[in-house]
C-alpha cells in the first residue's frame, strides 16, 4: 500500500494557513536536526532584532516578566522551545503583546514574526523522530477483558480501579494520560487474588449448589403460606395461593451438596404497611425467604399490568417510569415482576431458567372502535352473560366481542372480566366494544362479569379480513412479547435491577424454557451482614419482565415458572480450574507439573512465549511456597499472582532496539491488533498466526475475521463512545418535564445507536459520507419510536438499518445521543455542538479558551441566542476561537435538547461557515459536509481511528501522512472497512 521512501516526504508552506493544532504536550526529543538553514538565517537577520526591540526589555534572563524570557531563543529551533514560540505567536496575533504602554508592532513586523513562527513550527513538528518502541498500560476495560478471557472467570472484580483519564483527543487508551500509582498497583494485587480464588477450586470438596423454582398460576399452591406477607412500601405481593416455591436438587454429572435455603428467621425491625415496627418476631416458612411480588407504580393504561390465571402469571410490557420523585414512581417500571429472596450465592456463575409462552391474547379495544349492531350478520348474542354458557363458533376466525351492561348502572372504569374457554381477558370497562380475539371453530364456554353490575347482553361478531379492527388484530398477534431477566436488590428509591444477558422474543404460544446466565458478583446486591435484624435488609431480587419498546399493543407474556441455580457449574472441577491445572503426564511430579502449569499460564498471560528466565523466576515463587506449606494448588496460586501483577501482563510492550523505525514483532502485532479491534488479548488463532510468522502476511484476512466476530462490539462501543463524547449523555441532567420521553431506558438505547451505525457501515464497507448524511438510520423499536419513524420496526431491541424518509435524520451528526449530550438538558447549545463538530467531524479543533475570560456583563436576556453569540464573538479574546466554533453549531439549532428535530418551531439555522460557504440549514450543511468537505470528514475519522488504534497522540508527520495517503481511498468514497485496513496497514501502526 505504501512505498518505503514516502516517509521522507516533507510538507511545506501550503499547510500554513490551515495548520491544525496537533498533538498536545511535549514533543518527543529529536536528533539535533539539520534545520532549514534559511529559517536560521532569517532568525538572525529579522526575528532576533524584532524580539530584542519589542520583547527582551521585560522578558530577559533577569526580569523574566510573567516567568517568560525570549533572549535565549535561537534559530536552530530546539524542540523544547516550540511551546514558547506558540505562546509568543498567540500573544502577538491577539495584540495582547506588546502591552498597550509600549510601542506596538507594525503590521509588517507582525506579519514577519507570525509568518516565520508558522514555518518554524512546521519545520520542528515535521522533524524525523526516533522510534523507540512503546510501553502502554492496559486500560481498565482491556485489563478486565484480558483477565476474563485468560481465566474464564466472569466475575468482575475491577470495580475498585480508578477510571482511566481522558486524553486531549478524547480517548482512554492514550499512553501519556494513563498513569500508574501505588493505589492502582494495590488494586491489581487485590483483583488478581480474587480472580484466582474464583477460578481455582478445591477439587476434593464438592460444591454447594442452590437450586429452586417458583411456579406461578392462580391457585397453584395447595399449601400456601398462612401468614400475611409484608414487603414494605409499593410492593404488590401476589396472593399466597398463586405461587409456589420448591427447593430442588439439580442433576449433575459430579458430586455436590444441595444448598437449601434457611427458612427460620428472627427479626426485630419489621413493617406494618409503610410503618416501622420494633420487637422480636420469629418466622418459619420458605415464604418468608422467597416472595413473589410486583413492583412499580399503580395503574396501567390498558388492561391489567399483571394477572394470575391458572396457566401462570400474565405480564404486560413494563412501561418505564418517569423516575421523578413525587411525580412518578422511582421504583422501576410498571408491571415489573420479581422474586424477592434472602439467599443467593456470593460468587460464581448463575443460571435463571424461565418457562414462558406468548399468551393467546386478544386485542383490547379503545374508545375509537364502535360496537357492532345487533343486526350484524351471523352475530351471536348471549343474554345473562354472567352465567357460563357454551356457544358454538361456526368457523375459525377473528371475532369482536361487545359487552353491554344494563343502561342505568354506573359502570365506567369498572373492572370487566371475560373468560373464553381457558383464556382470560380483563380491562376497565369504557364502552361496549371490548376485545378482538381469534376463535377456533366449535363449541366453547364463555362468561363475562362487570364488577357485580348486571349485564344486559354480550355479542360475538365475526370480523371480515378487510375491517380495520381485524387488520389491527393481525398485526397485534404477529408481535411477540420480549422476555427480559434482571438481578438486583430491594430498596425504596431507584430500581437497581440490572439486565442479565439480552432479552429474547417469545414467539410460541406453547410453553418454552429460556436460559439466562451471568456472574452473580456483577449485579447489585445488598451488602449486609449475616443475621441482620431488619426484615427488609438484604433482600435480593430476580426480576422478570415483558419488555416495553414503543407502546404498541403486543400479546401478554405468560410466565409459568422461574428457576434459579447457582453457583452454576457444568463440570467439576470447573473449566476455569482445568484451564490452569492442565492435563499432564507429570501430575505426580510436583516440580515438573508446576513448571508446565506456570509456563502454559504465562504464555497466555504475556501474549507471547514466556522466556526461560520468566518461567524460572516464577517457579521459584511456587517452590518457596510449596516447600513451606506443601499445598500445591495454593503455591500455584501464589506464583500466578506474580504473573498477573507483572508488567508483562499489565503492559502492551513494543520493544525497539534502535532509534530507527522497526517492524513490530509478530506477537507485538497480534496484541496491538487484538486490543484495537477486540479490546482484549489475541485469541488462539491470532496467536497461532503470530507463532508461525504468518500474521503479517495474512493481516487483511485477519482484520476481516476480527470485524466479522462478535468481539468487534468491544471495539465499536468504546470507540464510538470516546470519539463522539457520548459520555456527555450520561452526565447531562435532562429536564424530565420538558423531555418526558427521554427516560433512562430510552437513553440507554440511544446511547448504543452510534456503535450500531458504525457496525453497519464497517461491515457493509459503506462510504464515509454516511457519517454525516445518510438515507438510512440504524434503529430498533425503541429508537424508532423516539425518532417517530414512519415505518414501525418489528425488531425488538435489535438494531437494523431502515430508510428514515425524514430529511433531518441520518448520520452520526443527527443522532439524539450526540445532540442531547451537547445541550444543557433544557435548551440546545450551538457552541457545544459547534465545538464538537469542529473537533470530531472535521478535525479543525478550536484552541483552548484563554484563562480568565471575563463574562459578558450586559443584561442579555432581551437578545436572541444568535445576537448574544454575535456579541460574544466580537469581544476581544473570544473572537478568534468563536468564529471557528459558532458557525458549525448554528445548523444544529434545528434540534432540541432531547436531540429531536424541532417540528413545531421556526428556527434560524442558517450559517456562514468558516470557509465562507453559506448554508441555509441542516440539509445544506449535510450536503456541504458530505460533498465539499468529504475529504476532511474522512481525514477526521481516520485521525481519530488511528489515534485510538495506536493508543497515543499522533505526531505532525503522522497526521500529514494520513492527510496525504487517505486520498487513495477517495475514488471509492472512503469506504469504512477499507479505512480500517488503511489504519492497520499503515507504518504508523506497523512500526515501532
Amino acid at each position, binding site marked *: 500500500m505504501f512505498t518505503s521512501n514516502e516517509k521522507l516526504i516533507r510538507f511545506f508552506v501550503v499547510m500554513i494557513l490551515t495548520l491544525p493544532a496537533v498533538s498536545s504536550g511535549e514533543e518527543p526529543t529529536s536528533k539535533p536536526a539539520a534545520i532549514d538553514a534559511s529559517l536560521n538565517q532569517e532568525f538572525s537577520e529579522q526575528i532576533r532584532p524584532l524580539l530584542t526591540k519589542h520583547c527582551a526589555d521585560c522578558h530577559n534572563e533577569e526580569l523574566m516578566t510573567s516567568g517568560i524570557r525570549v533572549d535565549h531563543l535561537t534559530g536552530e529551533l530546539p524542540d523544547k522551545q516550540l511551546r514558547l514560540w506558540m505562546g509568543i505567536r498567540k500573544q502577538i496575533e491577539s495584540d495582547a503583546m506588546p502591552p498597550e504602554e509600549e510601542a506596538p508592532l507594525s503590521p509588517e513586523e507582525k506579519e514577519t514574526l507570525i509568518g516565520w513562527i508558522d514555518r518554524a513550527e512546521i519545520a520542528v513538528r515535521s522533524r524525523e523522530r526516533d522510534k523507540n518502541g512503546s510501553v502502554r498500560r492496559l486500560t481498565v476495560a482491556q485489563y478486565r477483558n484480558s483477565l476474563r478471557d485468560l481465566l474464564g472467570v466472569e466475575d468482575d472484580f475491577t470495580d475498585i480501579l480508578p477510571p482511566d483519564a481522558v486524553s486531549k483527543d478524547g480517548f482512554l487508551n492514550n499512553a501519556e494520560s494513563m498513569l500508574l500509582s501505588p493505589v492502582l498497583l494495590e488494586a491489581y494485587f487485590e483483583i488478581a487474588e480474587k480472580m484466582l480464588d474464583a477460578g481455582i477450586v478445591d477439587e476434593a470438596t464438592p460444591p454447594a449448589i442452590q437450586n429452586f423454582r417458583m411456579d406461578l398460576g392462580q391457585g397453584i399452591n395447595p399449601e400456601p403460606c398462612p401468614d400475611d406477607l409484608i414487603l414494605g412500601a409499593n410492593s404488590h405481593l401476589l396472593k399466597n395461593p398463586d405461587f409456589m416455591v420448591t427447593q430442588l436438587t439439580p442433576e449433575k454429572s459430579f458430586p455436590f451438596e444441595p444448598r437449601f435455603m434457611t427458612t427460620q428467621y428472627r427479626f426485630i*425491625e419489621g413493617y406494618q404497611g409503610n410503618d416501622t415496627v420494633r420487637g422480636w418476631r420469629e418466622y418459619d416458612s420458605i415464604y418468608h425467604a422467597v416472595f413473589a411480588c410486583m413492583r412499580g407504580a399503580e395503574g396501567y393504561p390498558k388492561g391489567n399490568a399483571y394477572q394470575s390465571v391458572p396457566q401462570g402469571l400474565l405480564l404486560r410490557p413494563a412501561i418505564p417510569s418517569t423516575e421523578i420523585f413525587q411525580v412518578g414512581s422511582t421504583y422501576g417500571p410498571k408491571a415489573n415482576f420479581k422474586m424477592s429472596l434472602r439467599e443467593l450465592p456470593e460468587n460464581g456463575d448463575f443460571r435463571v431458567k424461565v418457562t414462558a409462552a406468548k399468551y393467546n391474547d386478544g386485542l383490547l379495544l379503545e374508545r375509537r372502535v364502535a360496537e357492532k349492531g345487533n343486526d350484524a350478520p351471523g352475530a351471536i348474542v348471549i343474554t345473562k352473560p354472567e352465567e357460563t354458557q357454551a356457544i358454538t363458533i361456526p368457523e375459525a376466525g377473528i371475532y369482536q366481542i361487545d359487552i353491554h351492561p344494563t343502561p342505568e348502572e354506573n359502570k365506567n372504569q369498572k373492572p370487566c372480566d371475560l373468560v373464553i374457554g381457558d383464556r382470560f381477558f380483563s380491562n376497565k370497562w369504557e364502552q361496549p366494544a371490548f376485545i378482538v380475539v381469534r376463535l377456533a371453530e366449535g363449541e366453547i364456554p364463555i362468561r363475562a362479569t362487570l364488577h357485580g353490575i348486571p349485564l344486559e347482553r354480550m355479542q360475538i361478531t365475526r370480523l371480515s379480513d378487510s375491517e380495520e379492527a381485524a387488520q389491527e388484530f393481525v398485526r397485534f398477534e404477529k408481535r411477540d412479547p420480549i422476555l427480559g431477566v434482571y438481578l438486583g436488590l430491594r430498596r425504596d*428509591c431507584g430500581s*437497581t435491577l440490572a439486565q442479565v444477558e439480552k432479552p429474547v422474543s417469545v414467539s410460541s404460544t406453547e410453553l418454552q424454557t429460556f436460559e439466562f446466565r451471568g456472574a452473580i458478583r456483577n449485579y*447489585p446486591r445488598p451488602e449486609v451482614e449475616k443475621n441482620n435484624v431488619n426484615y427488609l435488609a438484604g433482600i435480593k431480587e430476580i426480576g422478570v419482565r415483558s419488555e416495553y419498546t414503543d407502546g404498541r399493543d403486543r400479546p401478554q407474556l405468560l410466565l409459568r415458572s422461574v428457576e434459579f441455580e447457582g453457583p452454576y457449574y457444568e463440570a467439576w472441577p470447573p473449566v476455569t480450574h482445568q484451564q490452569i491445572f492442565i492435563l499432564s503426564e507429570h501430575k505426580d511430579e510436583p516440580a515438573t507439573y508446576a513448571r508446565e502449569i506456570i509456563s502454559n499460564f504465562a504464555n497466555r498471560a504475556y501474549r507471547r512465549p514466556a522466556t526461560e528466565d520468566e518461567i524460572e523466576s516464577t517457579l521459584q515463587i511456587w517452590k518457596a511456597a510449596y516447600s513451606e506449606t506443601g499445598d500445591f494448588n495454593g503455591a500455584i496460586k501464589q506464583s500466578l499472582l506474580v504473573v498477573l501483577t507483572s508488567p508483562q501482563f499489565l503492559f502492551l510492550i513494543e520493544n525497539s532496539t534502535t532509534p530507527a523505525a522497526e517492524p513490530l514483532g509478530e506477537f507485538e502485532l497480534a496484541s496491538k491488533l487484538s486490543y484495537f479491534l477486540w479490546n482484549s488479548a489475541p485469541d488462539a488463532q491470532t496467536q497461532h498466526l503470530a507463532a508461525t510468522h504468518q500474521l503479517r502476511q495474512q493481516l487483511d484476512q485477519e482484520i476481516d475475521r476480527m470485524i466479522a466476530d462478535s468481539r468487534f462490539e468491544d471495539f465499536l462501543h468504546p470507540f464510538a463512545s470516546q470519539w463522539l463524547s457520548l459520555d456527555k449523555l450520561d452526565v447531562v441532567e435532562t429536564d424530565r418535564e420538558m423531555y418526558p420521553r427521554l427516560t433512562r431506558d430510552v437513553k440507554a438505547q440511544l446511547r448504543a445507536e452510534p456503535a450500531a451505525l458504525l457496525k453497519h457501515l464497517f461491515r457493509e464497507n459503506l462510504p464515509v459520507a454516511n457519517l454525516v448524511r445518510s438515507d438510512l438510520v440504524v434503529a430498533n423499536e425503541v429508537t424508532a419510536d423516539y425518532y417517530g419513524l414512519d415505518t414501525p420496526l418489528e425488531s425488538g431491541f435489535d438494531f437494523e438499518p431502515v430508510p428514515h424518509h425524514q430529511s433531518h435524520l441520518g448520520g452520526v451528526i443527527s443522532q439524539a445521543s450526540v445532540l442531547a449530550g451537547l445541550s444543557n438538558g433544557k435548551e440546545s447549545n450551538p457552541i457545544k455542538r459547534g465545538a464538537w463538530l469542529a473537533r470530531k467531524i472535521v478535525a479543525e479543533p478550536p484552541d483552548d479558551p484563554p484563562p480568565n475570560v471575563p463574562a459578558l456583563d450586559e443584561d442579555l436576556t432581551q437578545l436572541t441566542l444568535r445576537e448574544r453569540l454575535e456579541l460574544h464573538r466580537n469581544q476581544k479574546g473570544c473572537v478568534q476561537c468563536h468564529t471557528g466554533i459558532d458557525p458549525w453549531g448554528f445548523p444544529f439549532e434545528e434540534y432540541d435538547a432531547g436531540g429531536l428535530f424541532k417540528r413545531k418551531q421556526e428556527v434560524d439555522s442558517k450559517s456562514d461557515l468558516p470557509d465562507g460557504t453559506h448554508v441555509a440549514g441542516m440539509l445544506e450543511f449535510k450536503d456541504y459536509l458530505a460533498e465539499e468537505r468529504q475529504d476532511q470528514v474522512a481525514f477526521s475519522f481516520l485521525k481519530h481511528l488511528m489515534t485510538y488504534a495506536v493508543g497515543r497522540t499522533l505526531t505532525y508527520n503522522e497526521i500529514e501522512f494520513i492527510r496525504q495517503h487517505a486520498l487513495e481511498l477517495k475514488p471509492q468514497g472512503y469506504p469504512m472497512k477499507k479505512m480500517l485496513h488503511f489504519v492497520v496497514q499503515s507504518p504508523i501502526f506497523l512500526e515501532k
Partner: protein
Amino acid sequence: MPDSLKLNRRSVLKGLAGATLALPVLEAMGSEVSQQVPRRFCALYTANGMSLPKEEHGIDDWHWFPEEVGSEFQFNKSTEPLSPFRQQLSFLGGLHHPNGTKADPHTCSDMWLTGAPLHNPKPGTYNTVALDQLIALHTKQYCRQPSLVLSIDAGTGFLSRTGTISYSLDGKPVPAENSPRRIFDRLFRGDTSSLEQERETLRKRIKLVDAVLENARRLNKELGKSDREKMDQYLTSLNEVESRLIASEKWIDIPIKQQDYSHLNLDATSDGEPADYYRTMFDLIALAFDADITRSVAFMLNREDGMGISDTFPIKLGLSSTHHYLSHAGDKEGQLNFAKYDRFLSEQIAHFFHRLNEYQDVNGSVLDNSIVLFGSGASTTHNPRNLPTLLAGGANMGVKHGTHWRKDDTRLSNLYLSILHAMGIEVDSFSDSTGTFDQSVFA
C-alpha cells in the same frame, strides 16, 4: 532525602526481627511511611433533622441554627452545651446535596457522606464512595486501622435507610460496629493469634511484591530503548506498595501508646442509658485518635425513619415520644421536645470535644489536628435543604472558626472537597462538587 541516606527498610526489619521499633525510626524511611502530626477526620451523623421550630410557637431560642450570622452569633438552647468550644467550631448554614432533592428523603443518611444520585444510580451500583472512606484510602498508610465505622446499630441495616453512613470505594455500605467492649478489644487489645495471622499475610504479600519487582526489573533491563518512563512509574509505584506493606507489618510490633483507660465504661450498651453509651463511644474515638490508631472515623448517632434502638432514646430521657415521631411534630410541645433531644446530643458532642482537647499532639490539642463534622441529611422533616451542619476542630489544618457561616444552596460536596484538601489529599473534585468551600472557613 537522597537515596543513599535512606535506610534499607527490609534490612532494618530483618535486623530487629520482632524487637520493638520506636516510631521515630520510621521517619527515616521516607515521608510516605510517617507523617509528623496526624490529620484526622470524624463524621458524626444524626437522623431526622434538627430542631428548627415554627415561628408561631415562640420558641425560636430553641432553633438549632443561631439567629445571627457571622462571628457575633449567640448559641441557642439546643446547642448551648457547645458554647465553651466557640472558637473551635463553626455553624454552616444553607448546605445541601443537589441529589438529595431528587431522591426519596428517607435515603438522606445514605448519601450524606457521598452525595450520590441514589434516585438514578449508575447501573450495577448502590452508592458511591463516602468521604470517610476516601480519606481512609489516603491515611491508612500512616496508622493501624484505615478507618473506624461506628453506628448506634451494628451492621449495615436495610439499604435505603442504612445503619451506616460509610460507603466503600465501590459504593458498598461498610458495616458498622456498635459495641464499646468489642471495639475496645479490637483496637486496644489485639489478640496475638490474629496479629500473627495478619503478620503472616503481610509477609506473604511482601514476598510476592518482591518477586514482581524482580520480574519487572529484569524486563526493564531487557527493554531496548522502549519508553522507560512507564516502567519507571511502575517500579516506583511498586516500591511504594512494598514500603506501605512493610510499614503495616511494623505496626504489629510497635506497642500501642500508653493511655489511661480508667474512665472507660465498657459495660455501656445501646440498650442502656443513652448518655453512657454515647460518651463511651466518644471516649473510644478520642483514645483511638490520640494513639493514632486510625485517622478516619464515621459515627452514626441515630437512624432515619424510626429505625434502630436510638428511636427510643428521647423516651428514655423523659421526652414525650420517639425520635422519628418528634421530628414530624408540628405542635409546640412536640417541637420543644425534639429541640430538647438536640440539646442532649449537643451535650454528648461537647463531651467529645472536651476529650479531644485534653489529648495533646506535639503542636496542640488533638481537636486542633482533627476535623469533626456533625450534621444531618435533613433540616426539618424530609427537607433536604439547609442541612444543619457543625464543623469543629482542625485549627492546625487551616480551618478558621468562631462564626455562623451561611449561604443558601451551597453544595455539601464543596465542603467535603475542602475537608479533603485540609487533610492534605489533593483531589480535584468530590462527588458533585463544583469547587472548594468558602475561603473564610478554609484558609
